[in-house]
């Protein structure tokens, strides 16, 4: 076995984006060291030095290489390391997986989560939109356990927020948008994702995640109110 440069990941606990990077590493079987940022303190020099453009986590450090942006990291991990493929091999299937990851990123996430956090009249609109978009994504499971088929892959990684985070946000806000009876496939997917053996090291501890969101509840609500005013 050739000795490979060390892999480190700058993250912070509770970040669904940092989780995506961890999930890619876990699924690929790449050992890594987690460097946790403390959100209560100002951003570390290490983070600012390695992600001067966006100043955000996750940041992957692989030897002297730096990779930023969670989905870019996922593709890098898939290509730079040996291990089970995260993306399909067929070019069309790859395009479809990337399309739905982009859909989650740019279309689904905001209204879906706003439907949980927003209070009052505006909530209904977000819920309607969120549910319509969720149905489109759910259809991509196509009777499989995971978006990637038998085992989780790139699109499961991209969708991970709809698993552990969704469950905790539902509890903290008291709002459930994706109801079991109406979205059985997605709800089952979320359970399968959270209990997947390969992902075990990077699934956040639920109690800890719950405490984190409970503690920051007012901050999220305020952020959402500010976004609505724009």
């Amino acid at each position, binding site marked *: 076995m050739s000795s490979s440069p060390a892999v480190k990941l700058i993250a912070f606990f509770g970040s669904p984006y940092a989780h995506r990077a961890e999930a890619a590493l876990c699924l690929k079987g790449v050992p890594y060291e987690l460097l946790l940022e403390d959100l209560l303190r100002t951003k570390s020099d290490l983070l600012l030095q390695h992600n001067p*453009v966006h100043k955000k986590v996750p940041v992957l450090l*692989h030897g002297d*290489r730096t*990779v*930023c*942006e969670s*989905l*870019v*990291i996922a*593709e*890098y991990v898939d*290509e*730079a390391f040996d291990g089970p493929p995260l993306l399909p091999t067929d*070019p*069309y299937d*790859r*395009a479809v997986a*990337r*399309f739905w990851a*982009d*859909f989650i990123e740019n*279309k689904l996430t905001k209204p879906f989560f706003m439907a949980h956090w927003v209070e009052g009249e505006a909530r209904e609109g977000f819920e309607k939109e969120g549910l319509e978009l969720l149905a*489109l994504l759910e259809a991509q499971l196509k009777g499989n356990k995971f978006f990637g088929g038998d085992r989780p892959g790139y699109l499961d990684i991209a969708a991970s927020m709809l698993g552990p985070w969704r469950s905790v946000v539902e509890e903290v806000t008291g709002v459930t948008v994706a109801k079991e009876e109406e979205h059985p496939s997605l709800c089952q997917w979320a359970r399968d994702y959270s209990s997947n053996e390969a992902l075990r090291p990077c699934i956040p501890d639920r109690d800890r995640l719950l405490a984190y969101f409970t503690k920051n509840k007012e901050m999220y609500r305020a952020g959402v109110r500010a976004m609505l005013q724009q």
Partner: protein
Amino acid sequence: MAGEKKGLQLLDFWVSPFGQRCRIALSEKGLPYEYLEQDLGNKSELLLRSNPVHKKIPVLLHDGRPVCESLIIVQYIDEAFPGKDGKPALLPADPYARAQARFWADYVDKKLYDCGTRLWKLKGEAQQQARKEMLEILRTLDGALGDGKFFGGEAFGFADVAIAPFTAWFLTYERHGEFSVEEECPRLVAWAKRCGERESVAKNLTPPEKVYEFICGMKKRFGIE
């Protein structure tokens, strides 16, 4: 299947920089295709069937199967037609170089077009803010380019394809922001010239004055002075 036709078809809109990314990629790979101009005010059955989720151009149809989202289309073109007639790949072979190319393409997607839209649409304080952001974006790209010939280094590649169409918009940004891209970002302008020397770019970009005319037309339609 969205359409039954064999071969490549591109559903597009003449001035769209996103569509132009696809045209450049197809040209770089030497791939023949049928260009189908779309009326965005009256969307065709084919477009709505091919991209029911977003209802937007560009859409690439390959033997009737649709691929949507410009950067996804460019990657698809690169992967589905590898090394044809010795034409080089758009994405480099090295995973790290690929990651860097994807990062900069993503950066442009996240930042450039929306900021540009705010720059020509808005007035007063909001326009000044957009101007400030645009300068920051362009300077960041200038910095990323450094002394390289292209974003990928020696070879024209994915990041260059992603960013080149926006060079036709520099004039529009300049006139609305009252700045000179050449003064602020000389390396970026030199890079734009080098891109423009490539046939794939030269024949697929809208001339800058035409982009400006188009935006002036849009402003009239929106009732903006």
